[in-house]
């Protein structure tokens, strides 16, 4: 029982990342009708916002300390971050320590700007072109973004720890009446899960309760009719692209303590997130979220030793297996509307 | 006994009765129009005839064989061709290639792995295709890209693609929808010409009364999913039931 609860928790956490990426992907597909293979790259840009902020905050000046020597026997150059010099060592260290959550404030403007630039500069020329062309050009873009990241940050994973306060794990089992120490769950993963819920809820609330959101939803349902009403739907859709980019980016920012970012995580997440979108149903926002969590949990269960004992290697292929089964038996996905993308 | 016999077709979508007990008989070598106001079930009926929809009950017999449960390509192979509301052609291919494909389909059936022959060496098919293009006066455009044709020419091309298969029944789904008057008249002339040149049965689903009365020999009026009357055009014009249910309402 405790093992199952643990795996559900793990699945929810993995699922939050999938759901956030798939949510953005679906927003883009639903509003703009564009299949964005560069969405994983947006997640990665978000993750590297964390790295960038961490580096910015750690920017240091050098002082030669004659009393110590470096590895070659020369006097040691001691590096002191500017923030520690300005705010005192303790406050400065705390600021650096909190660089991942702080990176949210960097990521939001950066991601919206990236989203705008992508939509205005590239995607808008592809609205009328076939889905295959959209896949191809965004696939090319994903390669380019990955390479730029690599040129600047190298190929190695970069350690971006969570703030000290969240580094431990909590005894989740006690809350449910288990023995102490049976269900341990890292604080940061709980933070991530709650963060994902907040973001998902905000996106839905935004679409549900603002006029802007209503227009966008109407546009998703029937673009032409809304266009006939004299509403400039294009401008709003550009903004939606920025929003989708920001959602993916925030998912990336907060995921860095769980997964040290490197230049290829965009591609790693890309295939997965597409599977999630397809399983959820192309163009269905609740479907994307549901499928994200369902696949996360399924993947966690498939990794259990008891399951792997019966079907070795099932954890490696479960996602694809589910995608194939869903596509064949229910092509519109869990919650997709009939007819979308069925061609 | 008509070539197409529709008996007791019912089709529901959720709570909506789209077709209710539809009976229809299309006699060979006639032009039979099916008219009715919007939402009368015309498109649903057409989709049943071409195999896209399966009715809840009833039967559709074409020349003594049931078409229900068959794929569109099988129904075509039985001898039913279809013209769409907006012309459906192969935009990326040339005009002559557009017409050759139905020729191959007619000759080779639904599938044949003829991957080794050269299309250019298929003289018989070429001649057939050229002949039909000449019939619709498009021979001079034979090497044009189909996508670059005018809308009227696209319609002609689509007709040619259907006619070249020498179908025993040609289904036309609002062939003049959205057309300017001049184009509509051209289409009517084209259809008349076709009718004069060959023995063919046509079933036209149409909104435009001008087209219907110019072409049809028999007319079935559909309202709320049920056939109201079936008559000759002359009798339809003055028919009180039709006036009440359809013409009066539509102010035509």
């Amino acid at each position, binding site marked *: 029982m*405790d*093992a199952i609860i*643990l*795996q559900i*928790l*793990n*699945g929810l*956490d*993995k699922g939050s*990342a999938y759901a956030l990426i798939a949510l953005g992907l679906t927003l883009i597909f639903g509003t703009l009708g564009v299949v964005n293979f560069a969405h994983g790259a947006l997640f990665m840009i978000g993750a590297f916002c964390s790295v960038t902020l961490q580096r910015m905050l750690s920017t240091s000046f050098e002082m030669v300390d004659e009393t*110590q020597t*470096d*590895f*070659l026997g020369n006097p*040691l150059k001691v590096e002191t971050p500017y923030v520690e010099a300005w705010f005192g060592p303790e406050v400065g260290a705390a600021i650096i320590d909190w660089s991942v959550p702080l990176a949210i404030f960097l990521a939001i403007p950066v991601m919206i700007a990236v989203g705008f630039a992508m939509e205005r500069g590239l995607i808008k020329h592809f609205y009328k072109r076939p889905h295959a062309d959209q896949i191809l050009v965004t696939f090319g873009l994903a390669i380019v973004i990955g390479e730029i990241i*690599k040129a600047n940050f*190298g*190929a*190695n*994973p*970069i*350690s971006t*720890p*969570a703030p000290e306060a969240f*580094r*431990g*794990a909590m005894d989740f089992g006690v809350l449910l009446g288990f023995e102490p*120490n*049976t*269900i*341990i*769950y*890292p604080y*940061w*993963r709980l933070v991530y899960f709650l963060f994902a819920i907040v973001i998902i809820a905000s996106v839905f609330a935004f679409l549900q309760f603002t006029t802007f959101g209503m227009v966008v939803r109407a546009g998703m349902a029937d673009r032409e009719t809304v266009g006939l009403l004299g509403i400039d739907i294009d401008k709003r859709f550009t903004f939606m692209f920025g929003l989708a980019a920001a959602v993916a980016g925030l998912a990336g920012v907060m995921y860095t*303590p*769980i*997964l*040290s970012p*490197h230049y*290829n*995580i965009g591609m*790693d997440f890309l295939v997965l997130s597409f599977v999630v979108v397809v399983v959820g149903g192309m163009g269905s926002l609740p479907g994307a979220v549901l499928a994200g969590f369902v696949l996360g949990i399924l*993947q*966690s269960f498939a*990794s*259990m*030793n008891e399951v*792997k004992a019966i079907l*070795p*290697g099932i*954890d*490696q292929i479960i996602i694809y297996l589910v995608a194939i089964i869903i596509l064949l038996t229910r092509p519109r996905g869990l919650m997709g509307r009939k007819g979308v993308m069925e061609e | 006994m008509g070539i197409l016999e529709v008996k007791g077709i019912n089709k529901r979508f959720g709570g909506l009765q789209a077709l209710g007990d539809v009976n229809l008989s299309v006699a060979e070598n006639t032009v039979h129009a099916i008219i009715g106001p919007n939402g009368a079930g015309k498109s649903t009926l057409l989709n049943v005839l071409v195999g896209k929809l399966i009715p809840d009950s009833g039967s559709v017999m074409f020349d003594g064989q049931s078409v229900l449960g068959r794929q569109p390509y099988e129904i075509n192979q039985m001898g039913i061709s279809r013209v769409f509301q907006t012309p459906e052609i192969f935009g990326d291919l040339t005009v002559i290639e557009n017409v050759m494909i139905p020729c191959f389909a007619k000759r080779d059936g639904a599938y044949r792995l003829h991957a080794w022959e050269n299309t250019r060496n298929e003289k018989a098919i070429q001649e057939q295709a050229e002949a039909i293009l000449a019939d619709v006066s498009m021979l001079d455009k034979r090497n044009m890209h189909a996508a670059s044709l005018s809308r009227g020419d696209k319609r002609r091309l689509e007709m040619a693609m259907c006619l070249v298969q020498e179908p025993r029944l040609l289904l036309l789904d609002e062939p003049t929808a959205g057309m300017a008057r001049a184009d509509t008249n051209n289409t009517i002339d084209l259809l008349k010409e076709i009718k004069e040149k060959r023995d063919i049965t046509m079933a036209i689903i149409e909104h435009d009364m001008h087209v219907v009365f110019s072409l049809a020999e028999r007319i079935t009026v559909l309202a709320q999913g049920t056939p109201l009357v079936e008559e000759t055009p002359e009798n339809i014009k003055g028919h009180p039931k039709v006036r009440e249910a359809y013409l009066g309402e539509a102010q035509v």
Partner: protein
Amino acid sequence: MSKSTISRRGVLKTGAIAGAGLALPTYLRADGHTGYTNAPGDSPTVTIGFNVPQTGPYAEEGLDELRAQELAVEHLNGEGDGGMLNTFSEKNLDGTGILGKKVEFVTGDTQTKSDVARASAQSMIQKDGCIMITGGSSSGVAVAVQDLCQSSGVIFMAGLTHSNDTTGKDRKANGFRHFFNGFMSGAALGPVLEAEYGNERSAYHLTADYNWGWTTQESIQATTEGLGWQTQEAVLTPVGAGDFSSYIAPVLNSGADTLILNHYGGDMVNSLTQAVQFGLKDRQVNGNDFKIIVPLYSELMAAGAGANIQGVIGSMNWNWQLEDEGTKAFVKSFGEKYGFPPSGAAHTCYVQTLLYADAVTRAGTFNPCGVVEALEDFEFDGMGNGPTTYRGADHQCFKDVLVVKGTENPTNQYDTLEIVDQTPRSQVEYAPDHPMFGGAEASLGTCNPGA
């Protein structure tokens, strides 16, 4: 052609050679008359190939290997301070290249993909005329390139490759490995684990699901079971899984008190980071403090995992903090040239290049069969690992193995690992026909000089 602005010099040269070519005789040659592949003949230079990952997940390691290899070439050609040439027990290399021929090199990118690595090595052999290939940062690539060098008739001096298979069931006469292997890791860790953690432990393995992971787990498991430890469970994890939480969570209540991560590179960084997040390091099980072990460490992984490696034990081939003369000389040349200490991957590639040069010199020929003979059962010292033997039976180097631990209180950014112990060579030796190394069937074959 004459309008080309790419390189005037090149054009001039091309023109001159083209002119000369008209006067030269034309001849056809089938291979088989030169004695061996890419024989340098009377050319004043000899070319070797540095085939390392420059893109892909191990690019950083590859680039560090490349730095060390370039340094080795400098030293062979008599530039720089000579590095380990001064501490090497053999004194045949005098800075005049190899056998009087200046050493030139070409580089290639393996992308850590066997197919690409083989394509790159083929280009080095067929196009650039390389006589030896060295480098690489994964066992799959090492096995693939070694096989290629065997069939092409050149020498392969493996870079970082830790799988038993490289000198086990996939051993080849033309291939040599200086780096240690999974079995040696296990054997070296044994005494330290016993001393630090006792004999009553229960281990839980997470193993990357590919050949290196399998052989490493097998080796470590044999060692720990030899100590009396139980093996609670051994779970295979997909390579590049990213989130290992669903594999780590079951460890919590499995009753195991030791987690062994048979992961490398990004997988290790992620699984270790996540294991620490799950509080494993702070746990108490069966009255023991929970411990994590990483069989194979590298400096770059240590940097990626940050503070999470503190106190975590693992093994290494070599570390720049060693105190012997060879290490000091190498760290000095490397550090002065590049500004930071070399990694273990860099060290093994540097040493391999020098060892090759020395073997050629002793053999008096570049002929691979001569080199193989010179390297087999060759004993040397002064290369940072103490007295070392290249065993003739499987072309594996035998030397002391380092056991290291993540530094608890790092003093600078390179101070990530500290040396716990140096397990003597006698402890890590095994028979060439050991079952983990392909058993009796494993065979080097015969050396292939190619053409």
